[in-house]
């Protein structure tokens, strides 16, 4: 063998060896990360299930922009917390007071060794910072006990970072400020970090990895970008950007593992952790109305709250802390978690599910979620959990992104909990979560997702069928299952296909996805409405304006629009409000395009582009977790509701474009109108101001109307105008709006109704008429139309009744006057009224019974009077008179001043007289019925006569009048002046000294005066002068006493020539024969 050969051999050997510089790849190291028994899902640990997908596919909540905005919100201006040392200083660490340290291994959630330092300050603020230690090599790893050893000694090699939570008012301050939780992450060198890798599955942007479990919201950024502002600010909330409504967690001492190093065992640190748990409790609101049985002195530090604040109530979370220490009062020194809420204690199975599934794998994160307005996500009751059962099934068994923390997820799948949960869901009708053999379904298998179960499409226009949310699928197949016609499905073997149908009706379409030998199928129903009766736009053209229309204008005809009071408006508790308000804070009374952009941004947080059907914007209106508000009930969904739902869905599929226009003609209405005028017409307001879009033009038109409608739109080019019409019926109006680029129309159906005429008028029944006039008295009755329905044509008629009645108007629609004669008193009239409006006619007949308000008569008997009368003897003939004649005088009565309607009758009577005017001396009337009779009196004195005037109508007090007549004897009848001279003629016989004939001379006889002799000394007092019966006075009568005989022819001496004397003496006697 040549030397050369041998050298070649040697160097070849050397080359062989040196070529061994290639590593064989260390494949053995891969076996260190065994995840045997743990299925692989979509793996989005510590990311929000709705991470807010951006156009490029990134998750906004997982971007540095998000974390930058967050820190800018919670530490604005010149930062005071951009390093750990600053943060500590800002929170008082190292300044004495209540500050403690605990070190433990968090095997349940993150697997770190955690060195937790906590502090509570005098103002009640609480802060924790935790150094996380992870020995990230074989021998270490998550949950390794080495981690807690590293935490005990604070080995910087394994210190992977520090997290901090601050529950304080900052950046606010001062009285009344509201504390809220803020989250920070710091790198090992103390600089604040925008991202944190909590589980070895990659760095994720703050604050997401923290608040996905601490109960905070992952809303999209506002333009700026600004960290989102939770819109439902209530009095008790902070009102701060950066307040994500997150909370501190209880320290679950039972789940920790501990170092064996003295001072760091569980026993050594139990008291510190109890103190920490009390501080956590201090950060939970204390609601008014909390059960007294749950109260304890540990609640004194908790901020008071009410449901008006609409914040998380934390009732069960507080109980969880208290129960771990023996209940209210927290008397137990050692933590022991045996808590099962009453809402999970109804059956042993419920309790088992809670203990085996909820408590270990769900509760930690869920119990700090929700608000008083909508708390079901806290799973504190079985009913709440079952309300989320469909999502539980999807997230746990289909998608595999719940539990949301890696270690919890792995522990879940390595336990019996999946089987327990799957069986439970099946038993409650929320499965299937197991296969035909009862084995738990695991994530990683193909899941068909064809989108919402119901949606609408436009006849003759393509609509997108999206199966992009399907999971773990390698192939897709769309097909029509049923329908009224044959639908064309384009790209049927792609995830995204198209649907086109021309025949109206419901089409069932299925999507089958496959991965190897596994497959899954989902079916949907596409409703194609009849375009002649229902309009649905081209789905591809739907933009933001149509969505705003759905949110603001109630086009689905629900009980209320989304922005009605109590819902998504400025006074509501909803987390997002929809009205046109100033969102960017620059002011202005109207919504600008920028404000709309902000709203679109906020709404994008309600859309889950990783699973569109799970979008709150789609689920809540159909009754899922919507504070009991179901706007579009699935059970009674109609075309309008399905159209609204579908518009939102297609808008999402279209990429949520801004802009567009949405016409709003207002809600269909059924006004009840009143026609008036000539011709009768009515009007209704048309309002398109609810249309959405910028720079809109309007064009109203009448699509259809009933016969005789004569509809006319006042100003077709205005947003708000009116339409007049002349008939009832169905009117369809349409408004077309345009912004110059997009055009949309909307119709409104106005079903005009008119209140039917129901004829009625007043009066009916008894009616008291006030009569007047003569000789025939009449009285008016005002008939008033009280019909409903506002009749415009009316007719009155007297159907029956006493003659003499008349109507002032037979056509008035307001009033007419029925004039009736007084002779109709007590009788009935039948009066009919007929009223008609545009659409109806009706009659009514009333019976009016005529009464009177009174007779109307005013009797007048004349004024009281004092009459000086000269009494005369009615039978005095100058020479001879009958002694039976009674002297009398008369007084005229006059009732002619009486008044009253109709023909009057008079009735006089003497109702009072002197006491001695009785018998023959009683007064008398010449006529009791004459208008002006005379009253004959025979005595002086006071007489009262009464006159009653009657006209046949019911009398009243005014029918009667009285007159008082004071009758006195007229002057000229005095004894001295008149009687003595009147006796002079008598003295021719009645001389002085006479015995048979007494002397009537005015002289004393026997010491008696003439007066005495006449009046007193007579044989009896009444002999010569009889004041009681003046006519029988002897001086007047002179009865055949012998001397008074006929031969003298002058009995009594009074004769024609002495009539005056007779009258004088008689009147003197009637006057009482006074000695005057």
């Amino acid at each position, binding site marked *: 063998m040549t030397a050369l050969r041998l050298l070649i051999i*040697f160097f070849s050997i050397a*080359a062989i060896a040196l*070529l061994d510089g290639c590593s*064989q790849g260390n494949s*053995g190291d891969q076996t260190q990360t065994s995840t045997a028994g743990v299925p692989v899902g979509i793996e989005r640990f510590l990311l929000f299930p709705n991470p807010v997908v951006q156009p490029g596919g990134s998750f906004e909540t997982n971007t540095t922009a998000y974390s930058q905005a967050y820190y800018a919100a919670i530490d604005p201006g010149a930062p005071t917390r951009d390093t750990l040392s600053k943060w500590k200083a800002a929170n008082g660490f190292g300044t004495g007071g209540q500050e403690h340290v605990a070190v433990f291994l968090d095997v349940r959630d993150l697997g770190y060794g955690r060195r937790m330092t906590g502090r509570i300050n005098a103002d009640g603020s609480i802060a924790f910072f935790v150094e996380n230690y992870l020995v990230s090599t*074989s021998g*270490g790893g998550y949950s390794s006990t080495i981690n807690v050893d*590293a935490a005990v000694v604070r080995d910087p090699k394994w210190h992977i970072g520090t997290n901090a939570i601050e529950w304080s008012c900052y950046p606010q301050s001062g009285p009344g400020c509201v504390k809220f939780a803020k989250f920070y992450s710091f790198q090992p060198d103390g600089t604040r970090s925008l991202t944190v890798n909590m589980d070895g599955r990659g760095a994720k942007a703050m604050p997401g990895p923290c608040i996905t479990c601490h109960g905070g919201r992952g809303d999209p950024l506002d333009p700026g970008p600004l960290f989102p502002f939770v819109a439902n600010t209530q009095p008790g909330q902070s009102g701060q950007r950066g307040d994500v409504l997150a909370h501190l967690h209880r320290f679950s001492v039972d789940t920790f593992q501990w170092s064996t190093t003295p001072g760091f065992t569980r026993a050594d640190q139990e008291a510190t952790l109890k103190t920490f748990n009390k501080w956590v409790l201090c950060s939970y609101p204390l609601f008014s109305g909390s059960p007294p049985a749950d109260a304890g002195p540990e609640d004194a530090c908790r901020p008071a709250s009410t449901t008006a604040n609409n914040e998380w109530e934390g009732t069960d979370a507080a109980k969880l802390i208290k129960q771990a220490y023996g209940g209210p009062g927290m008397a137990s020194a050692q933590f022991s978690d045996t808590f099962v809420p009453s809402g999970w204690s109804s059956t042993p199975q419920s309790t088992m599910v809670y203990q085996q599934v909820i408590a270990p794998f769900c509760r930690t994160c869920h119990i700090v979620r929700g608000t008083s307005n909508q708390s079901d996500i806290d799973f504190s009751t079985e009913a709440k959990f079952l309300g989320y059962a469909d999502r539980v099934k999807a997230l746990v068994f289909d998608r595999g992104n719940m539990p949301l923390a890696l270690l919890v997820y792995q522990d879940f799948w390595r336990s019996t909990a999946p089987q327990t949960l799957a069986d439970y869901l099946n038993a409650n009708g929320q499965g299937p979560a197991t296969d035909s053999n009862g084995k738990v379904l695991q994530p990683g298998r193909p899941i068909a997702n064809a989108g919402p179960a119901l949606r609408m499409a436009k006849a003759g226009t393509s609509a997108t069928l999206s199966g992009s949310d399907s999971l773990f699928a390698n192939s897709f197949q769309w097909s029509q299952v049923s329908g009224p016609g044959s639908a064309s499905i384009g790209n049927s073997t792609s995830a995204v296909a198209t649907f086109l149908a021309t025949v109206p009706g419901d089409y069932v379409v299925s999507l089958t996805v496959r991965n190897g030998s596994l497959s899954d199928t989902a079916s949907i129903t596409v409703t194609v409405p009849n375009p002649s009766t229902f309009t649905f736009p081209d789905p591809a053209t739907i933009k933001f304006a149509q969505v705003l229309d759905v949110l603001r204008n109630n086009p689905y005809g629900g009980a209320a629009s989304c922005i009605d009071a109590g819902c998504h408006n400025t006074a509501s508790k909803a987390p997002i409000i929809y009205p046109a308000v100033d969102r960017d804070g620059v002011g202005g009374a109207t919504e600008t395009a920028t404000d709309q952009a902000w709203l679109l941004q906020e709404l994008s947080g309600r859309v889950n582009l990783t699973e569109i059907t799970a979008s709150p914007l789609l689920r809540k209106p159909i009754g899922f977790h919507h504070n009991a508000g179901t706007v579009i009930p699935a059970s009674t969904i109609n075309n309008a509701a399905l159209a609204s739902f579908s518009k939102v869905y297609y808008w999402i599929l279209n990429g949520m474009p801004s802009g567009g226009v949405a016409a709003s003609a207002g809600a269909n209405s059924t006004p009840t109108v009143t026609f008036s005028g000539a011709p009768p017409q009515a009007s209704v307001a048309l309002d398109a101001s609810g249309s959405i879009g910028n720079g809109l033009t309007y064009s109203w038109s009448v699509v259809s109307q009933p016969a005789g409608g004569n509809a006319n739109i006042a100003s077709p080019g205005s947003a708000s105008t009116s339409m007049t019409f002349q008939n009832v019926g169905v009117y369809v109006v349409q408004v077309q709006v345009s912004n110059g680029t997009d055009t949309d129309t909307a119709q409104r159906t106005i079903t005009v109704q008119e209140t039917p005429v129901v004829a009625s008028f007043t009066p009916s029944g008894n009616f008291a008429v006030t009569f007047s006039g003569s000789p025939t008295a009449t009285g008016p009755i005002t008939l008033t139309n009280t019909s409903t329905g506002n009749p415009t044509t009316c007719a009155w008629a007297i159907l029956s009744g006493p003659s003499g009645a008349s109507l002032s108007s037979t056509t008035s629609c307001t009033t007419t006057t029925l004039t009736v004669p007084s002779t109709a008193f007590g009788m009935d009239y039948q009066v009919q009224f007929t009223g008609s409006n545009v659409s109806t006619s009706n009659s009514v007949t009333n019976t009016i019974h005529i009464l009177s308000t009174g007779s109307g008569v005013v009797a007048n008997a004349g004024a009281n009077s004092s009459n000086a009368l000269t009494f005369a003897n009615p039978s005095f003939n100058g020479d001879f008179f009958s002694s039976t004649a009674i002297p009398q005088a008369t007084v005229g009565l006059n009732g002619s001043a009486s008044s009253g309607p109709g023909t009057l009758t008079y009735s006089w009577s003497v109702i009072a007289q002197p006491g001695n005017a009785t018998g023959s001396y009683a007064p008398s009337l010449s006529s009791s019925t004459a208008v002006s009779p005379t009253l004959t009196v025979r005595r002086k004195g006071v007489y009262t006569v009464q006159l009653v005037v009657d006209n046949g109508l019911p009398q009243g007090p005014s029918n009667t009048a009285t007159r008082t007549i004071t009758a006195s004897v007229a002057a000229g009848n005095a004894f001295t002046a008149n009687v003595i001279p009147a006796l002079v003629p008598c003295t021719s016989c009645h001389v002085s000294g006479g015995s048979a004939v007494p002397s009537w001379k005015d002289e004393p006889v026997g010491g008696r005066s003439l007066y005495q002799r006449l009046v007193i000394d007579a044989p009896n007092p009444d002999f010569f002068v009889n004041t009681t019966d003046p006519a029988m006075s002897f001086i007047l009568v002179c009865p055949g006493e012998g001397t008074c005989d006929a031969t003298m022819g002058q009995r009594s001496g009074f004769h024609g020539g002495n009539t005056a004397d007779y009258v004088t003496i008689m009147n003197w006697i009637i006057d009482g024969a006074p000695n005057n």
Partner: protein
Amino acid sequence: MESQGSVPGVCASSRALRWLLAFGIACIACSPAAADGLRFRASADYTWDDNVNRATKDNKLRDRFASANASATLPLQLSPRFRLMLNGTLGGDSFHTYSGLTRGFAEFNGELQFRNSGQYTSPIWALFVKQGVDWYQSDLRDGYRTTAGLSVKKPVTDKIFLFGAASYIQGDGRSTVFDTKEWSVRGNLDYALAPRHTFYLGLEYREGDSVSSAPPSLALLDIAKATVQDDAFTNPQLIAYRFEARTGIVTFGYNFAVAPRQSLDISYHGAYSRPKEQPPTFISPDIVYYRDNQITLSYLIRF
């Protein structure tokens, strides 16, 4: 993601090339004339080891193992001063308790020797390259060994032989823990007490990667360059740590030739290895090191 057992494409190509070269060399070397110079050796050994896992004193595990080797050597004279020694060895160790350490191996060694003169005491300088492959029950340890170095062998007297070598040793295991690199300097003194009795003493210093298997320890994890859960020590599960260490090995033994080509040998190997980097005192005040003691009984034969 790499599946277990696959290698990068470039490395697969280089390994194929190596085997091709080896085949070629065999063809070149295996000429009839070359076959006449083959020498064969075999040995059987039994070793007691008090620290098979190379751990600190509290964590040492002891075991014993039997070994067998067979080798063939082909000297090839290149020139009056140059000689090429080709050697191929097959062998294996079988452990009693920790069977993961049981292995089979093959080595192929090439040594280019140079001797300036034929004088007895003239030293023999050599460049050597050795390529070995190990198959362990412990998958992580499977791999290749490559050694390259320079040696010198010099008889001082007819009783005293000195040997010295400096070499670079590189290992490539399935786990990065067993991807080791180290330098070695060693010396050996053979003293023939009598014609059949030889004592020998060896000292070796190594600097480079050293692997120790021990329970999880923060102190060890702090200073280890690589770690892996050792599949040779699973109950309890130990961690294999690779440190950058300094190691001293002393060997002394006695060889008795029971027959012209057979001998019995007893030897002691003691090693002390200490990582260059020690854990901070706040983690552990103790120095990390390991000691190992082996006693081996061997039966050797050559033919």
